[in-house]
């Protein structure tokens, strides 16, 4: 949580290391914070080169040490606000750490104090400088954009304004990724994802309806740490989170391989925690980190709580994967073709990786900006909060009951 101290570190007057020393903060406790970030990032794929996803806590600490506070513009277009709610649930890098310490989130309709003209002016000011852009929500293109307007402008116009000087663009959630439920048959409003509108720079798709909270925040922290967004698969999804199928890390995989299936909900097999494949699980076709990170402070995840995966990180899942409770086509019998089919899906995803990485070579603006700012006198409140964590972030352990740690009256 928030553990500050009024002694600001001023870039240029001393190094972060000196500053931490002077304040009596050990590198070891700073590293605890960084280890948590590394923990989330290290859930990446088995196959696709671990190098990018296994930043050490040391490397992260070094990189954060040299950081200023980037401006963040966080748009919500045609959407349900579930993705922002997911961010509120992040237990690794928390939303309060993100918006008070790591970035200056100058525009976000859910949380910002200002409204109306004052909010719109805050957006214009943020858009006029280099910034990281996060987008929730799709862009409805029919009726001249009248299906979603903000401050009298269409979602498409707002997105293009904000993308112009964006140094990195994150489409967070299925709506921003490909349109989600409103883009499903018959797509009444002509909804499309961000990368159909922003075509002149790479878009990172943080997939899911909503994405796992920690994946959203880790995608941003990764970018702050590295100066460029994480490597992605063929759909633009960060490999550290979407590099492996749910099926490959499912704790019920052994049941699948043994042919032990739930046939109907609450049957003896369900009560024994068996595999949900025959009641429609989309895990074999879905690339997502749910079984590893799990949800809500790692309490549980959909399959763990007895419901089949509905494949919400995949494009078109409302049309491709419905009816949800029917068995996946072509995957009917374990051991006879299942793996062939599912692996084919996997290879298609991985083959596109190289392309995605190449596309991101262009996203170096953030690094350049950082370099240009390095000589300026910049206040950096980042580190004050970092070292006092009681345990590594992202370790999966729930935080203590309702609370930060001090209790001195």
């Amino acid at each position, binding site marked *: 949580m928030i553990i*500050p101290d*009024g002694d*600001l570190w001023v870039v240029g007057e001393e190094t972060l290391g000196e500053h931490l020393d002077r304040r009596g903060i050990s590198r070891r406790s700073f590293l605890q914070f960084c280890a948590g970030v590394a923990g989330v990032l290290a859930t990446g794929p088995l196959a696709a080169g671990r190098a990018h996803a296994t930043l050490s806590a040391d490397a992260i600490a070094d990189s954060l040490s040299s950081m200023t506070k980037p401006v963040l513009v966080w748009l919500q277009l045609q959407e*349900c*606000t*579930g993705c922002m*709610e997911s961010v509120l649930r*992040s237990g690794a890098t*928390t939303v309060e750490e993100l*918006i*008070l310490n790591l*970035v*200056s989130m*100058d525009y976000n*309709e*859910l*949380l*910002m*104090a*200002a*409204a*109306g*003209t004052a909010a719109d002016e805050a957006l214009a000011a943020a858009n006029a400088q280099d910034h990281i852009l996060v987008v929730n929500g799709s862009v*409805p293109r029919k*009726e001249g954009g*009248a*299906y*979603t*307007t*903000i401050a*009298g*402008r*269409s979602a498409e*116009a707002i997105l293009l304004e904000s993308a112009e000087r964006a140094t990195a663009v994150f489409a967070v959630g299925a709506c921003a990724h490909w349109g989600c439920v*409103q883009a499903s048959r*018959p797509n*009444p409003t002509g909804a499309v994802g961000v990368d159909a509108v922003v075509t002149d720079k790479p878009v990172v798709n943080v997939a899911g309806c*909503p994405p796992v909270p920690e994946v959203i925040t880790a995608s941003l922290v990764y970018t702050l740490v590295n100066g460029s967004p994480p490597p992605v698969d063929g759909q633009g999804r960060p490999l550290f989170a979407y590099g492996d199928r749910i099926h490959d890390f499912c704790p019920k995989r052994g049941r699948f391989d043994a042919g032990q299936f739930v046939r109907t*909900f609450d049957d003896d097999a*369900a*009560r024994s*925690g068996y595999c949900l494949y025959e009641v429609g699980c989309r895990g074999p076709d879905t690339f997502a980190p749910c079984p590893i990170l799990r949800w*809500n402070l790692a309490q*549980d995840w959909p399959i*763990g*709580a007895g*419901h089949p995966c509905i494949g*919400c990180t995949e494009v078109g899942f*409302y049309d491709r994967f419905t009816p949800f*409770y029917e068995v996946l086509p072509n995957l009917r019998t374990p051991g006879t073709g299942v793996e062939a089919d599912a692996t084919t899906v996997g290879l298609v995803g991985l083959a596109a990786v190289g392309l995605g990485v190449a596309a991101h070579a262009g996203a170096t603006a953030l690094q350049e900006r950082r370099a240009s700012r390095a000589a300026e006198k910049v*206040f950096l409140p980042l580190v*004050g909060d970092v070292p006092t964590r009681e345990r590594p972030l992202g370790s999966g352990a*729930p*935080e203590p*009951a*309702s*609370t*930060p740690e*001090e209790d*001195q009256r």
Partner: protein
Amino acid sequence: MSERVVIDPVTRIEGHLRIEVLADDGQITDAWSQTTQFKGIEMVLRGRDPRDAWAFAQRICGVCTVVHAIASVRAVEDALDYPVPRAADTIRNLVLGSQMVQDHVIHFYHLHALDFVNVTTVPQADVDAAVAAAVALEPDYALNSAGRFQAVKDQVTRVLDSGQLSIFTNGYWDHPDYRLPPEVDLIAVSHYLDALVWQREMIRVNTIFGGKNPHPNFLVGGMASAINMDNELTINQVKLDQLQALVAGTLNFVRDVYLPDVVAILGAYPDYLDIGRSSASFLAIGKGGYNCSGYPSPPNGFVPGVMLDGELTVRELDLDRIKEFATSGWYRYPQEGIGLQPWDGETEPEYTGPTPPFDWLADDERYTWSKAPRYDGRAVQVGPMPRLLSAYVQGEAETRDDLDPLLRRLGARPEQLNSTAGRILARAVEAVQIARQLQVWLDDLVTAIRSGDDRTFNPDKWEKDTWPAQGKGVGFAEVARGTLSHWVRVEDGFVSNYQAVVPSTWNGCGRATGQLGPYEQALVPHPLLRPEQPLEPLRTIHSFDPCQSCGIHVLDVTGAEVAWSRVQ
């Protein structure tokens, strides 16, 4: 000379809302509530498997994330005449109830408090004085401590001094109507941050049964989380123990912190018991969290009904009197003023406004993506305040016991709950009531398990060949923002029509039958000191807890022929 003032975006809400007002000499003289987003989910639902419908309908809203799924499975079960095991009912109550308490807390601290709490005074706060005040107010809350408050004060000071204000950028911090002393601002900001931690914890009630939140999983015919005390992957003793801790922690925070904070802050804004008065007609089908298939029959004799025109008596709900109008909405309507019964309703958008960008919409008769429901021609309010007021008027003991001391302390009459402050107070009281009820539901679940009544799913009507060729159903729920219902028609195994009738449509709609919608009525008249800093109207709009993605969904109920024979 009236000045045109536009508030767009209205921030700290769900969805997209635009408010246009005319202001004259410090007062708002006219107002238009404009929902500026449409998604068309009902159109997407046609032709789908009704067992899948909840997963589509749920995505109407990710803030209330549970409620549309519950209304959906209830409606489908009604259409298929599909009974649900008792344990599954109880689990749904636990999931919905915990989400509602969380929703109310997030609304107050994260979406509403900054209308009353000035974060920029925090650096001036005397920490010891703040601790003394907080401990006097909330003696049982451990984080009302000097260490905590000092940490928060330093944190906020650092953000403000950095010149990079993040979410506080461009706030109306120099507005003269921020009234709290710096110490109370500090307490509130500290609890704002505490509430973020708390909501992450307590929402795991959703995760235990639904696998995740936002958007936990549901199931037509029950719940997917099987109970087996002798298996490590099911609902077992470990999970029950966790639930007990989560339920206790939920109640502790809302009882010991949220409600006292609300009362303290409202104490500095007593005039808001007379500001923001809206329609004096109210609808409530049960207490917060009540949900059902078919016609509502809430427990303990609560009468589902309406109070009309300021009369504090509850009349039993007559669905024939509900009609919906497209007078001010961008929808195609065959016969203006004559609605369709929801099972036959249609959602056909017809945009007639200006092509964006635009500056002003209220010159046109049609200016919003919301339709306008009316009860007997009246705009009615729904939500925690109408629910609480209805329970109070019906003499419900818990509500009397909760409300009377608070009304005395604020010097308010019950009818003054129809105000900006009243809606805020009612929401906090309701959060405490639902949090208490969570314990009752959890005890019910444990009792059921103990007696061997631990089925969570009924397989009898799961397969399509057991379904009627045609069926229609309705599911009701009293959710965070008011009365919700979903209406479905199933033909030959598929959804042939689907309509969601949503709280924010009732509250946030525009003009019809010669009446302004409830948001609009609440703003006329209304103080507005500085048109460029519309702080006061934001207080009132936020007091409704707008959820405009929900509000775009439509109500199509006719007067004449509501076919209730099946469900009554």
